[in-house]
């Protein structure tokens, strides 16, 4: 068989793999699995094994105490077995029905089962044993799904359906193992420093919740496929997350959090965290004391990370291909619509370009969370120009084609539940004629004046919205989000979070005044066409989650947006003084 031959040739050229028992075991079992056959059903035309071997250390602190600390090692195997042909295979079959809740067969050609555990000591025999059973189960499910799918296609009139999968050039690359670079005593020291950091919260009576979380994670990814791909690549991520909640005078709470990625665990103990905590508390406190604004219609400047949050909510999901939903038939509650129907049309004003480039690891000395070497389908990512002169010209692709596009751009990364679908890496937004910060503020004031307003609004951060929830928000964000949803006006939630830091900028003298208590009226991707101006500097906003990403975007000015005042009565009956506010 051709692919077997290829495999043998490649393994000769790869002495390093001899030492890696995972690759060896998977390659050996792959050879056997290619012979799988049942009754008159053919052998698989494609098999891929993916292993994620992850070591995680994490800890959480609040008000001076350690609330959790854990170390975890997990090693899991995901198996993709496809029968049929590139054109028509078992993937994305509706045959799963209600039973397929755990597998998420919809979306992006998933034909694999749930991940199974592999031994932590990477024992060769035990890996083969696990791969043997996983392949057997996946093959049997594949032929069932394939029959179901063929039957349902026979009575459908859709003859222009896109192919189910595309071939890819084999890649053979075994990179050094990623490992965590700290000792037990470093970790112990980090635990002490973390507790000390959050002890600062006890000095602020207005702080009613908050915490600090550190996590160190080394992941090694392995991909072995029947096309001859054999990859091992890893990455190490040190993450810090600081969150603070303060109470406003009338009860509802305001929260903000910040996340930092680092290449060194030394930052867990960095003194700069203290100043960041203090400034987080101060910003929130000032905002909580600011007057409520019960509505606004006029020019709005999305400044700082608010601009990146805006693009994340409106573009990030939509520019990634969503096979099986081409043509934008259904808009599901998924934080962003499929934009493929707008290809060739205007998405943004002409001076805008947008591209995604996972190959870039840093931008202006800031580490980018969306950098990676290979996607989860074993494809190396490439830079994709998505918007040129304001028009949408391409989509980010995994290996599953859509109505208009075929061929992976290396953006197939794990979505929720292990399903593979196209996802942004580092999404860059740029404006050819960007203004300096002063000129942009001036433009805001001029626009406000022309509308007969005394002031314009500058928004410099949003609370996490539905879109960022759907792409891997943390528990704290979730809780805050749902707490707010309860108090909100109801109706369908905006993909955008509520404005968090908002200032009135006065036309008369340029002075700025904090306000609060606003939410957006309907905002959708078409709103983006109304951007008047953008800045000439870009801010990096990193997002965590299963497929971490970055948005790099300039501030943008809208001519006119509607905002409402939030009605929120979610105060507590209990007026029990918090421990740190009691008189000793």
């Amino acid at each position, binding site marked *: 068989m051709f692919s077997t031959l290829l495999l043998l040739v490649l393994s000769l050229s790869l002495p390093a793999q001899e030492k890696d028992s995972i690759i060896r075991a998977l390659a050996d079992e792959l050879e056997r699995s290619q012979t799988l056959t049942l009754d008159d059903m053919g052998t698989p035309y494609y098999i891929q094994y993916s292993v994620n071997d992850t070591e995680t250390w994490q800890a959480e602190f609040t008000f001076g105490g350690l*609330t959790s600390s854990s170390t975890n090692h997990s090693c899991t195997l995901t198996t993709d077995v496809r029968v049929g042909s590139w054109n028509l295979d078992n993937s994305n079959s509706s045959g799963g029905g209600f039973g397929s809740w755990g597998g998420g067969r919809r979306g992006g050609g998933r034909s694999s089962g749930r991940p199974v555990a592999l*031994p932590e000591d990477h024992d060769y*025999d035990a890996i083969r*044993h696990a791969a043997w059973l996983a392949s057997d189960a996946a093959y049997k499910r594949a032929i069932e799904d394939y029959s179901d799918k063929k039957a349902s296609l026979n009575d459908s009139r859709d003859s222009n359906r896109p192919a189910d999968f595309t071939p890819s050039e084999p890649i053979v690359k075994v990179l050094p193992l990623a490992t965590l670079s700290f000792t037990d005593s470093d970790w112990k020291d980090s635990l002490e420093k973390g507790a000390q950091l959050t002890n600062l919260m006890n000095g602020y009576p207005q702080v009613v919740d908050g915490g600090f979380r550190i996590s160190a994670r080394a992941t090694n990814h392995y991909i072995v496929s029947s096309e001859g791909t054999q990859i091992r690549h890893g990455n190490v991520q040190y993450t810090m997350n600081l969150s603070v909640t303060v109470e406003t005078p009338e009860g509802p709470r305001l929260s903000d959090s910040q996340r930092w990625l680092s290449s060194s665990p030394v930052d867990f103990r960095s003194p700069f965290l203290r100043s960041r905590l203090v400034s987080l508390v101060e910003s929130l406190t000032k905002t909580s004391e600011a007057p409520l604004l019960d509505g606004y219609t006029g020019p709005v400047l999305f400044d700082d990370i608010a601009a990146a949050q805006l693009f994340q909510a409106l573009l990030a999901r939509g520019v990634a291909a969503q096979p099986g939903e081409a043509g934008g038939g259904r808009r599901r509650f998924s934080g962003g619509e499929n934009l493929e129907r707008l290809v060739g049309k205007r998405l943004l004003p002409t001076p805008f370009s947008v591209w995604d480039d996972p190959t870039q690891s840093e931008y202006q000395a800031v580490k980018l969370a969306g950098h990676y070497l290979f996607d989860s389908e074993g494809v190396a990512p490439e830079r994709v120009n998505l918007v040129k002169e304001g028009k949408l010209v391409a989509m980010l692709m995994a290996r599953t084609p859509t109505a208009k596009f075929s061929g992976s751009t290396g953006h197939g990364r794990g979505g929720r539940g292990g399903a593979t679908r196209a996802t942004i890496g580092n999404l860059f937004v740029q404006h050819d004629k960007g203004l300096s910060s002063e000129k942009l503020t001036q433009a805001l004031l001029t626009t406000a004046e022309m509308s007969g307003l005394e002031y314009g609004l500058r928004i410099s951060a949003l609370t996490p919205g539905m879109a960022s929830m759907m792409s891997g928000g943390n528990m704290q964000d979730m809780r805050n989000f749902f707490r707010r949803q309860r108090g909100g006006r109801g109706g369908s939630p905006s993909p955008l979070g509520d404005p968090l830091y908002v200032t009135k900028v006065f036309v008369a003298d340029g002075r700025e005044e904090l306000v609060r208590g606003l939410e957006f009226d309907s905002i959708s991707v078409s709103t983006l066409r109304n951007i008047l101006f953008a800045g000439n500097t870009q801010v990096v906003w990193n997002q965590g989650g299963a497929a971490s990403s970055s948005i790099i975007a300039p501030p943008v000015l809208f001519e006119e947006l509607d905002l409402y005042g939030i009605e929120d009565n979610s105060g507590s009956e209990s007026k029990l003084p918090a*421990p740190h506010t009691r008189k000793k």
Partner: protein
Amino acid sequence: MAAMVRIPLTLFLIASLPASALAHNTWVGALQLSPSQEPPLVKLLSEEVDYSMENLVAEDGTRPYFLSYSVTDIASSVIQAKLGAVYGDDQNRSRVLDLDLRVGDYQLDSSHPIRGRGGFGGRRTLPSFLGGAAIAIDDNPNAVRFALWQATGNAFDNAIERYRQVKANLKTMVEEKNQAADFSKEEPVRWFEEEIVVNLDRNDWTERVQRVSALARSYPLVFNSSVAVIGSAENRYMASSEGTRLRTTRKLLRVVLSAETRADDGMDLEQSHIFNSATEDGLPSEKEMTVAFRAVLEQVMALREAPLVEPYTGPAILLNRASGVFFHEIFGHRIEGHRQKDVNEGQTFTNMVGEVILPEFLSVVDDPTQARFGDTDLRGFYRYDDEGVLAQRVELIKDGVLKTFLMSRSPLPGFDYSNGHGRREPGNSVVSRQGNLMVESKKAVPFEELREMLVAECKKKSKPYGFLFEDISGGFTMTTRGGPQAFKVLPIIVRRIWADGRPDELVRGVDIVGTPLSCFSKIICTGNDPDVFNGTCGAESGWVPVTATSPSILVEDIEIEKRERSQERLPLLPSPIIDSKN
């Protein structure tokens, strides 16, 4: 997530070992404890209870009348291996805060059931699930106080809202039949045990589970197998507004051996053996583990060859531990106090106190104060329940007559006090649960005699065979009115006993079904071989460790039905492990 160890969650029966016949229950007094000082965390909890009781007040002046805090600190340790490879080597520590805050008074409070709520089965009449809260795992006073403050505020808001609903509900519904109070008054207690930890030599145990698990390498048709040692040390701290101050401890250790295969017809088959212990020293030696794992592997392979059985009604013996599970499901769950109070429950026994419900030669007690039975540590042992009430030996059935119920602090008419059976898994609301359920018999014969009686019973009824249920993986029962008052018990080792003297025959694919009242009346006799089933029981208040101890029982008529099974084929390719060692 690290590799999950398969911890049996339903009641799990230990694979059969030669049953050690024990003539008498062995009573064990209080373990040797050096009385210790009030731990700092208990002091902190009690200070915060006092502060909250003094300062919690709603705008309309409502205050709580009762508040208790429990912090459960669990350190757990798991080492698992399959086929000689290490799968999980995890250590975890967590602390969960549970609090009970009540407004109203002992007679009528915020926990009162609200009638007419909820759809199917109408279960939503209990106070809303609050869940446990995270609390600092170091004893940092600021962080502990903060977590208590946060949880207390939420609980107070919920209690006030619920108390309003309770009062409104009482006005709109017909007068309640059940006039018992909502909460019992109990004596406050003070008791501080020494803190405990799990002490396993991780290197030694890792190598040991690896070596034992490698046995499965020579069984190519055993598709999944596992050898694991699991240990947990629980230190629980409590303080209440009534003055209760406690630190109690519980250590649970297990070695779990399991193997799975599939019969040619697609039926999935499993076997397991669990060693339980309350001390590290009580864990089995490597030799004992090897012998037991070999037996598990052989047994599961033997099941592949066993014939399937048709539905049947006729005489049967439930071997001691299988009988223990049977009593736990069919009897134990129905004498839990809160079920007598809930109008949605079947209330099989609610009005039967003083009546005969079992044959007169049987008595049943639940005794959480017993730490051991013979030389077996009992998982259902505790000194104080999860409401801080002293555990009591409760005589549930005396000579066949129902005497009382398992009580938490939720009283019933005529039963005003708790008997120390209010239990929960941390993070759940307390309800009454079993601890160590023990069936005692005055009509006990040696097992061989019981077997002869079975054969005689078959002949009398002109049945060609009866059944011996040796091992049961678990069972479940429905107690609500919405469904049938039925139970199902899932045997894994069943033998056909032929009336004509043919050798016993291993069979597979049967479940025992029935209804409780009719089943009890058909118990004819018991063995003199009481033995312990150590398990974990799941119900409304989560998973709690329990035991059920019983002699073997002979039942005149038992109904079995075919088990559901998968239609999956065996793997198409042979196992890749070709072990030269075997």
